[in-house]
């Protein structure tokens, strides 16, 4: 009887020991790991608390997100106003009420082709200015607009820049156009920029008006940035044909205009920024 009880107790002990090895020991390991992780999390909390201070409350976070949302709206509004509703350079080929375009570049390409076709006639006012010298690729029956996106973007930049200058030249009646050229400059940082150099002669008042029209608010071109502007009196012996065309003594105008880039990557929405 006693030996039977001992045998049963031994069997129970073996079962319990096996259970301990197979289940309890891993549980103990898990427990130790949980305790160690617990200590590590508390240390991390303390370290982060020392380094960054107490975390904000839910209300503070909500307030910060609200402010960020307001700033984002304000930035969008500013950009819409500054860039006349355009999100990329090709949007200036469309009327303002259809910007930014959401249906791809098909319509802009058509508008660009039409613009490129109409520009050569408009350039006749500028002596020596031709589409080739200005880097314009005028579509023809044998060859349409290139499929290369970079070339298309370059054509967009050049054509939209010309639109504003040509509009100013037509708006100022006593402006005698002389030079028109594009210039590529490489700034210290960022991508290469396109500058437009305009030269001509006009009476002083008209020169100022031309300057104001070129730089003034307009929805058909990107915001313009003045690079330099010079007015210089033209000696009388150099008036030439202008003396017959202009009602008052002319001044020589040299205007270099840059264009604000549209669709800058920096303005893309960041991760976590409230929509």
């Amino acid at each position, binding site marked *: *009887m*006693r*030996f039977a*009880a*001992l045998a049963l*107790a*031994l069997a*129970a*002990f073996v079962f*319990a020991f096996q*259970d301990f090895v197979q*289940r309890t020991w891993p*549980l*103990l390991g*898990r*427990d130790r790991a*949980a305790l160690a*992780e*617990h200590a590590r999390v*508390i240390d991390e*909390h303390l370290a*982060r*608390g020392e380094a*960054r201070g107490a*975390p*904000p*409350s*839910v209300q*503070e976070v909500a307030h*910060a997100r609200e*402010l*960020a949302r307001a700033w*984002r709206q*304000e*930035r969008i509004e*500013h950009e819409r*106003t*500054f860039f006349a509703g355009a999100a990329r350079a090709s949007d200036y080929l469309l009327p303002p009420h259809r910007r930014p375009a959401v249906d791809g570049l098909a319509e802009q390409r058509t508008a660009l082709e039409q613009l490129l076709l109409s520009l050569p006639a408009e350039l006749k006012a500028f002596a020596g200015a031709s589409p080739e010298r200005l880097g314009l690729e005028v579509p023809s029956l044998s060859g349409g607009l290139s499929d290369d996106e970079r070339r298309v973007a370059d054509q967009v930049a050049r054509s939209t820049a010309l639109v504003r200058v040509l509009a100013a030249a037509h708006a100022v009646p006593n402006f005698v156009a002389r030079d028109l050229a594009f210039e590529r400059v490489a700034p210290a940082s960022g991508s290469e920029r396109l500058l437009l150099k305009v030269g001509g002669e006009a009476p002083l008042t008209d*020169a*100022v008006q031309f*300057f*104001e029209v070129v*730089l*003034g*608010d307009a929805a058909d071109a990107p*915001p*313009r*940035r*003045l690079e*330099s*502007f010079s*007015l*210089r*009196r033209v000696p009388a012996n150099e008036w030439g044909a202008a003396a017959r065309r202009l009602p008052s003594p002319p001044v020589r105008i040299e205007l270099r205009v840059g264009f*604000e880039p549209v669709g800058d990557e*920096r*303005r893309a929405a*960041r991760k*976590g*920024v409230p929509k």
Partner: protein
Amino acid sequence: MLRRAAWGVDLTGGAVQAVHVERRGDRFRVVDVVEQPYSTPGDASETLLSHLPAGCDRALQELLRRHAASLSDPVFVALPTFGSRHGFIELQVSDPAKAEALLDFELHQALGGDLSQWAVRFGSLRRRADGLAASFFAQRRDLLASFLNDVRRVGVPVDGLIPGPVALARYARSEWPDPGLQLVLEVKRTRTDYVYVTPERTRFRSSPLGCGGMKEPEFLPRSPQRDFDELAGRLVHEHHAARKALFGAKDGTALSRVHLLGDGARHPELRAALAELLHTEVVVPHLGRTIDLAPSRTKAHASRALELGTPLGLALAALDPPRGEAWDEDASLVKPPAERRLLRGLPVLTTALLIVAFGLLALRWLVARDVESDEKELARVRAAVAWGAADDWEEARAAATADAQRCAELEGKAAALRNQMSFPGRLLESLRPPDVGARLVSLLLTPGEGQDEAELEFEIEKPQTKALERLAAHLEATGLSVVSSEGQRTESGGLFAKLKVTVHRVGSAP
């Protein structure tokens, strides 16, 4: 709880008398009683022998056959006191540390030399007015071994061996802890033990005279008093002789009570005769102070069990050994065999294994609960501090800052463009008043970071005094800062003025 039980077995006096006693806390319960007579009916005396009496073998075999299972409990057997010595050694010292050597010396005197032939047990040291004192019991080792071999040869396991009268005194002290001198008179079939018990000391004597000559109570003749008077007279005579031998002729201590035990306790006539002769109250136990009987036993059985003083004393000594005393008169003269100790250790081992097994299983439950609790706490601690909120806050702040910078940048650009655009017009407007008298001949406007710079060239046909300064002052008044100015006379008497100015931006964002 582990069950603790023991057997007390008395083989002398014409019958095997055994009790199986169980300990329950401070109390004891008699669970079994065995009485197996082996003396010849009518035989009232025995030869005092140190070995087993004749006929005892068969009675023991019967005991073994019927109670083999429970004999795994400790079995304590009463040792016949034939050939033994017992006494009381008084020492004239009060320091217990010196007592042992002195006791050894005194024991040599009492036992006559070589102690190696004796198995000796001392009682506890008692402090007296004139020193220390201790009782002792000594039995010759050859007699002890002879008895032990006889009993073990039959097959009865012997875990302890205690002198019968000493065990009887143990029982008496447990049941009747009264002060004064008490006589425990255990009248067996073929012998009688006289045990004189005081709180300090035990004295005893045995005589080969019992009540075996009397018929069983149910078969007694109609007027048996004469036989009992005669038996009582012989017992009292032995008592006086024993008392004189043990206490001395001049001892005047009165007996406070006489306890009648054994087979003689079954005869109320004997008790009455003894009371009349001893002039003292003679009592037969009917109710135990610390001992009770299993409920299945009848009242008659219960009172009969309480009359088996020696077996009960043996069982009490087995179940309740005195602790913390260096010497113990009740201690067994032999040790239990190793296999018996091992067998009795099995329940402890079994219990220990079960406890460990249960503990291991319970540990898993506890650890699982602990793991769950710790992991919950870990998740709580992780979520307690909203570093995610801090990150969101930082993100929102960075985005808002970037947007604000962009807004400021656009506002600045717009303001700069407006300034640049309006500068030539404003300049011409400021030069229009007639008092200026200067004609703009050249303008070079160059935008800067925070302000624009311009180089202006004027022609003044009829320059007045300090015309250049006046022109510069006029330009300053229009919001320009003149950085440098230089004048040069022309051939026609005019003044050619060249000024470098910075153009402050005016107005705000569009």
